[in-house]
C-alpha cells in the first residue's frame, strides 16, 4: 500500500505533488488545532445507580417493540411524579401505589392473553407440543428466555428462567393447556419489577469508588435516552459481546440509535417532559370565557410545540436558543381560531411563519405554554413568569407562604380598567409576597399580551396592557424583546444541558459533576447549540455511564450479584 502511494506521488507532476503535500499538512494542522484547543471531558464523577419506573410512553413502546403495536394495553397509568423539573427524574423517586399495581396486573393479563391467543401465537412461537395439553419444556424455555431478555432488558439468570418455566409447567398441568401455562409465565414477567423498573447494575471487576454501569445497564441508558424505548436485540447483542465496553462500540450504537425512527420520538418525549405537558391532563378552561379552547385544541397545542421543536432542532439542525425567537411553526384550523390566523389547509398541519409584528416569537408564545400556565378563567403573569424561570432557566422560586391572602387579587379580577399588573401591585406592599413576585412577575408581564387561552390581545378590562418587564437586568417592552432576552440569557443553554443530562441519568446533577456540565455546555456552544450534538456528546461521554459504587456494595459483592443476574451471558 505504502509503495503504491509512493509510486503514485512520484508519478505526479510537481504542482500536483505540492498540492497534495500542502493538503496533508493542512489537515494535520487542523487536527492538531482541534486537539490543542478542544477541552477533554472531565474525569467521570458519577452518581448513584438508579431504579426508575418505566413511564407510560416507555411501557407502551416496550410492548409495541416486543409484541407489536397492535397489542392492546388495557390498564391505566398513574399520573407521573415530577422531580427536579422532570418526570424522567421523578420515576426514580416515586413509590408505586396499589392502584398502579392493580393496573399493571390488568395490562399484563391482557397482553399475555393477546400474545398467546390462537390468532397471534404463531408470530412469537416457532415451536410447541404436538398435544396442546402437554408441556413442551424446550419450547417454553426458548420462548420465555428470548422474551424475558427483551422484557428485562438483560438475559435471565438460570434461576429466573427456571422459575418462569416451572410456573408455566405447573400452570399447564392445572389448566390443561401449554399455551395457558405459557401465558401465566409471560404474565408473571410482565408484572415483575425487572420489567416495570429500570434497575441499574454496576459492572464487576472494578474496585474503585467510581465505577461503570454493567453492559446491559449501559444499553438501557443509551436506549431509553436516545429512543425512549428499551434496547433492541442488536443493542442487547452489543452489550453481550462487550462492544459497549469500548468507546468505538458505544459511538456506533449511538449513531445507529440516533438514525432510528424512534430518535425524534425520544427528543419529543424529553421536551414534553421538560415543558410539563403531562399537566395538561388537569388543565381546563372556562368555556364561557375561552370558547375556542377544548381538549382537542389542548392536544393540538402540545403537538404544535413538539412539532415545531422537532422541525427546528432535528430537521433544520437549528440552534436551541432560537426556539425562543422562532416564528416558524405549524397550526391546524382549530388552533388558527386561537391564533386568529387563517389556515388554508383543511386537515392536518399548516406550516406557518409569523411576521415580526404578529407577536408570536418563540415557544413561550405558543398556546401550549400560555394556556398551561394560566388560570381557568384568566391569564397569570406570575404562573407564566414562574414557569419560564423554572422550565427554561432551571431557576428555583420558593413556594408561596401558607398565609398568603389571595382575596385581594380575586376581588379585582374583572373590574373595569384593571389589568393583571394593577392586581399584582398589591403584592408589592406585602413583604412576604414581594420577594418572589419581583422575580416572577416582571418576565410574565410581557406574556400578558396573550389571554388565558393564548389568544393575542392588547387590552384587558378596557385598559391597554403594559408589556414592559425585566429579565435579570435585561429590560423589555414587547413579546419580541422578551423572546430575545430569553434566547440570549446565559442560563438558557445551560439549563437545557442540565435537564438533558439529568433526564438521561435519572437523577439530579451532583456537585462534583459541575465540571462535566461546564464541559457539556462548552461543547454545546461549539456545536452551535445543536441538540443532537449535545445528546451525542452526553451519550458517548464516560460520565454518562459512571456511577458511584453503592455504599453497601463492595466490589466483590457486585461481581457476585452480577454473576447471579446473568451478566455476561
Amino acid at each position, binding site marked *: 500500500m505504502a509503495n503504491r502511494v509512493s509510486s503514485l506521488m512520484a508519478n505526479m507532476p510537481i504542482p500536483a505533488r505540492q498540492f497534495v503535500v500542502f493538503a496533508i499538512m493542512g489537515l494535520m494542522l487542523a487536527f492538531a488545532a482541534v486537539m490543542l484547543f478542544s477541552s477533554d471531558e472531565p474525569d467521570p464523577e458519577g452518581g448513584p445507580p438508579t431504579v426508575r419506573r418505566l413511564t407510560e410512553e416507555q411501557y407502551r413502546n416496550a410492548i409495541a417493540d416486543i409484541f407489536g403495536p397492535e397489542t392492546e394495553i388495557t390498564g391505566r397509568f398513574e399520573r407521573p411524579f415530577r422531580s427536579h423539573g422532570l418526570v424522567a427524574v421523578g420515576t426514580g423517586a416515586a413509590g408505586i401505589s396499589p392502584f398502579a399495581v392493580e393496573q399493571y396486573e390488568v395490562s399484563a393479563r391482557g397482553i399475555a392473553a393477546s400474545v398467546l391467543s390462537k390468532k397471534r401465537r404463531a408470530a412469537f412461537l416457532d415451536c410447541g407440543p404436538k398435544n396442546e395439553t402437554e408441556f413442551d419444556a424446550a419450547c417454553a424455555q426458548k420462548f420465555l428466555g428470548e422474551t424475558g431478555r427483551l422484557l428485562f432488558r438483560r438475559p435471565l439468570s438460570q434461576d429466573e428462567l427456571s422459575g418462569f418455566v416451572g410456573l408455566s409447567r405447573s400452570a399447564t398441568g392445572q389448566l390443561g393447556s401449554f399455551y395457558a401455562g405459557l401465558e401465566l409465565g409471560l404474565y408473571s414477567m410482565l408484572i415483575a419489577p425487572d420489567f416495570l423498573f429500570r434497575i441499574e447494575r454496576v459492572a464487576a471487576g472494578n474496585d474503585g469508588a467510581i465505577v461503570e454501569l454493567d453492559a446491559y445497564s449501559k444499553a438501557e441508558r443509551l436506549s431509553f435516552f436516545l429512543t425512549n424505548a428499551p434496547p433492541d436485540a442488536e443493542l442487547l447483542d452489543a452489550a453481550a459481546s462487550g462492544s459497549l465496553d469500548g468507546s468505538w462500540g458505544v459511538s456506533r450504537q449511538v449513531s445507529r440509535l440516533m438514525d432510528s425512527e424512534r430518535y425524534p420520538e425520544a427528543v419529543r418525549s424529553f421536551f414534553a417532559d421538560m415543558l410539563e405537558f403531562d399537566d395538561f391532563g388537569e388543565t381546563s378552561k372556562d*368555556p*364561557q370565557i375561552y*370558547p*375556542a379552547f*377544548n381538549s382537542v385544541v389542548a392536544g393540538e397545542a402540545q403537538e404544535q410545540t413538539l412539532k415545531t421543536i422537532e422541525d427546528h432542532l432535528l430537521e433544520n439542525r437549528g440552534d436551541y436558543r432560537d426556539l425562543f425567537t422562532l416564528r*416558524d411553526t405549524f*397550526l391546524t*384550523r*382549530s388552533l*388558527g*381560531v386561537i*391564533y*386568529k*390566523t*387563517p*389556515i*388554508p389547509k*383543511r386537515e392536518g398541519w*399548516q*406550516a*406557518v*411563519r*409569523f*411576521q415580526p*409584528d*404578529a*407577536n*408570536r416569537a418563540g415557544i413561550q408564545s405558543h398556546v401550549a405554554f400560555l394556556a398551561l400556565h394560566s388560570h381557568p378563567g384568566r391569564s397569570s403573569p406570575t404562573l407564566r413568569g414562574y414557569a419560564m424561570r423554572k422550565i427554561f432557566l432551571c431557576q428555583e422560586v420558593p413556594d408561596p407562604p401558607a398565609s398568603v391572602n389571595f382575596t385581594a387579587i380575586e376581588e379585582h379580577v374583572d373590574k373595569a380598567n384593571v389589568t393583571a399588573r394593577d392586581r399584582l401591585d398589591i403584592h408589592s406592599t406585602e413583604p412576604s409576597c414581594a420577594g418572589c413576585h419581583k422575580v416572577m412577575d416582571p418576565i410574565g408581564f410581557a406574556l400578558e399580551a396573550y389571554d388565558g387561552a393564548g389568544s*393575542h390581545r392588547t387590552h384587558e378590562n378596557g385598559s391597554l396592557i403594559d408589556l414592559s418587564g425585566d429579565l435579570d437586568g435585561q429590560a423589555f417592552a414587547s413579546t419580541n424583546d422578551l423572546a430575545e432576552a430569553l434566547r440570549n440569557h446565559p442560563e438558557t443553554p445551560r439549563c437545557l444541558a442540565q435537564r438533558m443530562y439529568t433526564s438521561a441519568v435519572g437523577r439530579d446533577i451532583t456537585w462534583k459533576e459541575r465540571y462535566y456540565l461546564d464541559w457539556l455546555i462548552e461543547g454545546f456552544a461549539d456545536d452551535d447549540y445543536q441538540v443532537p450534538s449535545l445528546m451525542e456528546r452526553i451519550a458517548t461521554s464516560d460520565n454518562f455511564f459512571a456511577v458511584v459504587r453503592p455504599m453497601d456494595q463492595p466490589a466483590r459483592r457486585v461481581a457476585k450479584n452480577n454473576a447471579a443476574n446473568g451478566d455476561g451471558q
Partner: protein
Amino acid sequence: MAHKTASSRLWLSAIAIAAGGMAAWWWWPDDRISAESGGLIRDGNASFIVTKFAYALGPDAVGTDSCPNGPSKNVAEIFSETANGKRRAGETDEAYGERIEAGGRAISNAPDGRNFCVNPEIAPLDPNTQIMLDPKAQAGGIDLDGKNSRSKSDLTSGRLDFAAADGTTGVDNQFWRAVGCNRSYQQDGPSRGFEEGMYVGEWGILISLSGVDDLENDSDVDITISANADPMMLSPSREALDYGTYSRDREPRFRGQTSGRIENGVLVSEPVDVRFHYVVNGMYLERPLREARIRARLSADGVMDGYLAGYTDVVELYDFQFGYRTGKDAEGKPSDEARRVGSANGAARVLGHTCQGMWQSLHKLADGHPDKSGKFTSISTQYKFEARPAFVVEQSGKNAKQTK
C-alpha cells in the same frame, strides 16, 4: 481547439445548471404561509361567517286581524271539514284519526293519481290556504325596488309593501304575505328558522369584504357572498367561534361578487345573484336569491347584523321550501322519489299547509322579474342574519361537504 471549446461549453453548461438549481432552490415556493397580526381587517380584507339565518318575518299574524279567515289548513284538516270527514257515531279516536289521514291523502292527489306536491300546477285552487293581505301588517327588511307600493291596486293584488318596526318603509317581503297565515311561520313555529342545518355542517354562508379601509365609513368595498364548503367551528356549548377558517364553495354559481359601501357602520351592497346549499331530510337542495343585497350594521367587534334580501324564483322557492322536487342524494343524483314525495306531503301535513296552496300563493304574490307576458316569476324574500368574524380562503380540492 475544438476540444477546448467543447470542454468550455461543458463547463459553462454545468455552471449554468448549478446556478439554475441554486436559484430554483432559493426561490422555490414553500407551503409555509405568512401569518400576520391584526383584527378583523387584514390587508383590506374582512370576512364573516353567517351564524344566524332566518326568514325576516313580522309579528305573529295567526289569530289577529291579519288572518281574518284563520290559519291555512292541511289536507287532514280540509278533509275533516267535509261531510265524509265528520266523526261518525261510535267511532274511536284512533279509527277517526286514521280515516282523517287517509282522507287527507286522498285529496292530495289528482284523480289520475298524480300527487299535488309533485304536480302542484294541476291542482284546483285551494281556498283553505290563507294569504296575509292586511295592509297594517309589519315586516322587517329592505326596500328592494325603491318604491313604497301602497296603492289601491297594490291592495287588490296583495303586492303591498310593508313598514318595518324600525321605521323603514317600502319593505318588499311578499314571502311573508304568502306564509304569514301558516301556523309554522309564527314566532314559535318550526319553519321560521332553519339554521340547525348550518350548525351541523349541512350548509353555510360566507361574506367577504375587500378593499376595506374603515369599517365605519368606506365608499367602495368589494363584496363576495358565497356558500361555505366547511363545517362551522363550534364551542363546547355549540356556539360559532370567531376567526375560524372556511373555504368558499368551489362552484362559481355558489358565489356572488358585487360592490357596496359602508355608511356610518352600515354595509349596503349592490344587487347580485347568490345561491346557497340547503338540506332537508337528507335531500340536497339549493336556495337561490336573485338580485340579493345586504343592509347590515357592523359592530366594533366585527359582528354584522342585518338583512340579506332579494327575489326568489317562485318555482325554485316552491321546490326547496315545500315540494322538494329537485332534491338530490349525496352523489348528486335525484333523491329517491318516495323520499321526495313523502317529505313534501309529510311536511305539509305537519306544518299545516297544502303543497298546491303554497304553489298558488307564491304565484299570486310574486312581485319580481316579470316574463314577456308581464307575469311575475319571482317573489321578494327577506332574510335576517348575523355574521361573525372569520377567515375565508379558496380551496382547490374537493369540498369537505358534498356540493350538489
